[in-house]
């Protein structure tokens, strides 16, 4: 581990040289796949379609005798249900159904409208509605209490089978949920590759979110322009980069262990966030600020996810194709050897802590955008999720070993477990136990792999 040739070997991070290393790297992707398969199976169930497909399926299921029936289409007011109601009405009109009306709204509105309609026009023969509305008890109570509904049939679209976990909506949901942690994990991967740790990232999320919201409020409030919001966000990100720089200086110039230096900055940043926000959340910001966190401009992928993927690609190229990227591995593999071979180790260390700060700052801006408010309570214990993503992704806590896309896989493993457990109704207490065990299992695996791959390389070159 401490001889110079070893460093050069570890400076080749992208090429797994033997079978165990190969398996270990793609083993994690295998775990993610297994998790996905498991939750796909566990959430596979009856799904009743809505929207236009639901309207078409329901229309096909009607019999010809229904043409003269008095039909009411009932739906809620959101986009999908409105689509259901309008498409179904159009289909019925084309199909020659004579007596069709529609009601949209929440249960009290629907009840009132249905009661008024029967008073004015007489009994209803058929109610066509969505699965969501069918869960209301409005219809059952009308059937028993109102003679106009005594013989009403209620129909919903025929069901198919599908998996909630695997639905496009949920996959977007999972990537959206992990975007912040995954982006911060880029910086953390670099820090951990150098053998360090950054505990301040959770607090930096809060600081950045609060600073962004506070600056937007100070520079224009709810009427702030797009440029103002960008300026406020960049200022906050830069401030977090400066905090990272400060940690880096403490670590390189004054030889303070990274754990302690960043633990201190975690406190400082959290306190600063509370001071700036005066203990309150700030939401006097324009509604358009949610563009980054909740918008989806590219192929219905959330913007935060697009940004995350772009950053991972950039980080991957940086880590594998540039000398500065390789230096990070070298410094982590063996700092003394790296220094002797002419690498400016202090500069590399400073760089990684600045990157970590910037990533955390960006994470804070995204969080503020997702929640359309900045609060000093954001990001608590996030450093643990970030570190867990990195470690589960196969980066060694000792430094020098790991790869950037592994971290993305690690982040997704954590996101999939959290989302999957929510979808399958696992109790919150048990969720914590399961998540903890998975993290422990990953580190254990890393440890076992290390010992066996050392044995492997010893065999190969005696």
């Amino acid at each position, binding site marked *: 581990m401490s001889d110079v040739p070893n460093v050069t070997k570890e400076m080749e991070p992208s090429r797994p040289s033997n*079978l*165990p290393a190969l*398996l*270990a790297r793609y*083993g994690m992707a*295998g*775990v993610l796949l*297994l998790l996905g398969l498991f939750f796909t*199976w*566990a959430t*596979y*169930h*009856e799904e*009743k379609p809505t929207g236009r497909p639901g309207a078409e399926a329901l229309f096909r299921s009607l019999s010809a005798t229904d043409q003269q029936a008095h039909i009411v289409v009932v739906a*809620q007011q*959101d986009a*999908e*249900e409105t689509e259901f109601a309008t498409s179904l009405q159009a289909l019925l009109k084309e199909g020659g159904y004579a007596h069709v009306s529609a009601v949209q709204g*929440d*249960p009290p509105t629907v*009840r009132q409208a249905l009661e008024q309609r029967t008073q004015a026009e007489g009994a209803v023969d058929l109610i066509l509605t969505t*699965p*969501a509305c069918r*869960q*209301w*008890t*409005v219809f059952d*109570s009308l059937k028993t209490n109102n003679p106009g509904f005594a013989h009403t049939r209620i129909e919903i679209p025929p*069901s198919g089978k599908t998996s*909630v976990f695997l639905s496009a*909506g*949920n996959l977007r*949901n999972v990537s959206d*949920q992990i975007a912040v942690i995954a982006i911060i994990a880029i910086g953390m991967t670099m820090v951990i590759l150098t053998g360090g740790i950054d505990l301040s990232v959770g607090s930096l999320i809060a600081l950045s979110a609060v600073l962004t919201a506070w600056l937007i409020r100070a520079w224009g409030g709810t009427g702030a322009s797009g440029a103002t919001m960008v300026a406020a966000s960049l200022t906050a990100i830069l401030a977090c980069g400066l905090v990272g720089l400060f940690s880096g200086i403490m670590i390189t110039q004054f030889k303070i262990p990274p754990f302690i230096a960043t633990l201190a900055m975690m406190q400082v940043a959290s306190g600063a966030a509370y001071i700036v926000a005066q*203990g309150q*959340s700030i*939401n006097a910001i324009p509604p358009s600020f*949610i563009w980054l966190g909740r918008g989806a401009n590219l192929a219905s992928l959330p913007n935060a996810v697009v940004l995350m993927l772009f950053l991972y690609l950039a980080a991957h190229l940086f880590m594998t194709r540039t000398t500065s990227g390789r230096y990070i591995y070298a410094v982590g593999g063996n700092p003394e050897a790296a220094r002797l071979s002419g690498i400016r180790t202090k500069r590399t260390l400073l760089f990684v802590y600045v990157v970590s700060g910037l990533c955390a700052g960006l994470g804070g801006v995204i969080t503020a955008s*997702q929640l*359309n*408010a900045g609060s000093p*309570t*954001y*990001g*608590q*214990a996030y450093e643990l999720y970030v570190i867990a993503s990195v470690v589960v992704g196969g980066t060694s806590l000792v430094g020098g070993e790991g790869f950037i896309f592994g971290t993305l896989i690690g982040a997704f493993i954590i996101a999939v477990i959290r*989302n999957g457990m*929510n979808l*399958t*109704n696992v109790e*919150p207490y*048990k969720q914590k136990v*399961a998540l903890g*065990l*998975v993290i422990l*299992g990953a580190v254990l*695996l890393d440890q076992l*792999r290390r010992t066996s*791959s050392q044995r*492997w390389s010893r065999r190969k070159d005696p």
Partner: protein
Amino acid sequence: MLTRTRAFAHTMALPAMALTLFALQGCNSNPPPGSTPPPGPSTGAAPPTGGSGAAAKKTIGVSVLTLENPFFKIMGDAMKAEGEKNGFDVIVTSGDKDAAKQKDQVNDFIVKKVSAIVLCPCDSRAVGAAISAANTAGIPVFTADIASLDTASKVVSHIATDNYAGGKLAGKAMVDATGGKGKVAIIDFPEAESVQQRTKGFKEVLAAQAPGIQIVSDLDGRATRDDAYKAAQDILQKNPDIAGIFCINDPTAFGAVAAIEKAGRQGKVKVISFDGQLEAKKAVKDGKIYGEPIQYPDQIGQKTIQSIVKYMAGEKVDPLQLIPTTLYTKAEADKDPDLVKK
């Protein structure tokens, strides 16, 4: 070759472990015992549709502030029980005081297409994002215990303790405990809207009924035992002659009582709490806590589910439903059958 096989075995260790975990989880995903099976067509020997069959079964998704505080556990359990009576599967999750995590949970509920969502907001303003998302998806949102302060999103009904009136009761208890004079401190948790109501009522009664009382300190105890313990120690250090401490909830009061006992000032510093957990009732009986307005988390839970049922039946639901507190002192504790048994 041996090494290679061993390494392979190690690599496969995690998937194996993960599978074990999920076997365990599969058992948990079943609905609570006694709940009615979904009325939809049977899926035969299909996967565990039990808890996950969201569209087939009527489900209510709940995200509480934290499950560290028994208050929310009792409320969640009451919701589950009341839901079961009305044919709902109630899923209770914990936001762990993290607004972003709570938003994620709401998004999971939306994906599951639950019938209704109940929230105890982790942040009264930032919760607006989650509520808006549910509004867009056409899922009605109810808040319990803690209100949303976001004006852009729509909540059907807020069901909570009458914290303001409760705060007044706490103020009255403090006036009784101190005889209407002396120095008093508050161990606060100002982020929560419910707590703001409590301290408002408390301060108003003190100002109106006991001009002799002076509020010398108002510290944040994070509504947890350990932070409140430290805050109480600081209060006792700075004010040797402090006569009473108003703790905004029971965990805070336990922290304060511990600090008072450590300082050997039992009986001299009167503690007024707010909640009504069993442990606190015992402390009232033992004289460690002078008295407290008690809340009824079980009633809040029941009322919330009843409101959802009413709403689904198309009946009008009041946008604000307050559950009153009652003052609990040693006189009540001595008669409390719950405490006699133990």
